């Protein structure tokens, strides 16, 4: 019987990027995590910045003055893009992870058509929706304002 521990061989965080068949869904998963972290960081600061409205108009104006200007506008637009992707992909994940958009179990016949293929049109549609939201947001942020 084997007593010793073998040589470690986990892919670690590189496994979040590669190690399988490099499908689209792996990258959507990684991007979902990155946008989630970005949104969380923004949100925690947002709670503190917007709480100024509880202290009246002057406090609100001072708080908003601290977060206006060129870089902040670009940053906010990136947050909007992150939201667009995270929300759209989130809708896909709710449908997929509750087993609704992945098709029924079938007898596997080669070449195998897995649930990944079944939900691929949804994934692509969701990307189009996210892209349209980003375009609409970009229009509002940079052109119409």
């Amino acid at each position, binding site marked *: 019987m084997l007593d010793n521990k073998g040589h470690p061989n986990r892919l670690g965080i590189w496994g979040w990027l590669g190690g399988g068949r490099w499908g689209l869904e792996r990258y959507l998963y990684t991007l979902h995590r990155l946008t*989630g972290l970005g949104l969380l960081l923004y*949100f925690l600061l947002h709670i503190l910045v917007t709480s100024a409205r509880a202290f009246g108009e002057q406090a*609100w104006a001072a708080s908003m003055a601290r977060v206006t200007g060129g870089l902040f506008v670009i940053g906010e637009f990136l947050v909007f893009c992150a939201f667009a992707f995270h929300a759209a992909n989130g809708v896909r994940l709710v449908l997929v992870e509750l087993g609704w958009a992945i098709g029924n179990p079938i007898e596997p016949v080669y070449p195998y058509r897995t649930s990944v293929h079944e939900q691929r049109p949804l994934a692509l549609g969701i990307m189009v929706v996210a892209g349209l939201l980003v375009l609409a947001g970009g229009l*509002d942020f940079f052109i119409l304002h």
Partner: protein
Amino acid sequence: MRDQRLWTWHVLAGLIILVLLGLHMTIMHLDVLVGIFNPRDPHPIAWANVAARARMGFFTVSYIVLLGAALFHGLYGFRNIVFELGIGRGLKTALNVVLVLGGVSLFAFGAWAAWAAGTLARTL
């Protein structure tokens, strides 16, 4: 903590956020294209608009609900990412405590701010 319960609430919170944050983003960032709930000024974050929304009970309640849902959803997601890096049991317990305390504190503060803003706006 039972992951079955936490994950289910994570999904439910996500659905709540989809609706409420979608509304918030529409008000704030699609205002020229769609233009809702900005009755007093073309700029969504002008004080007149902020006060007008704070006066509406719907916004006070929905901001508090959105705050709770987003804090839970975001912090649980962050917890998942860190836990999946293969950290030890002690670190997991410590992170749980920090996230619960931090989340509850931020919720209490944010909920107070939403309520206080509403009370203030009604006196104006």
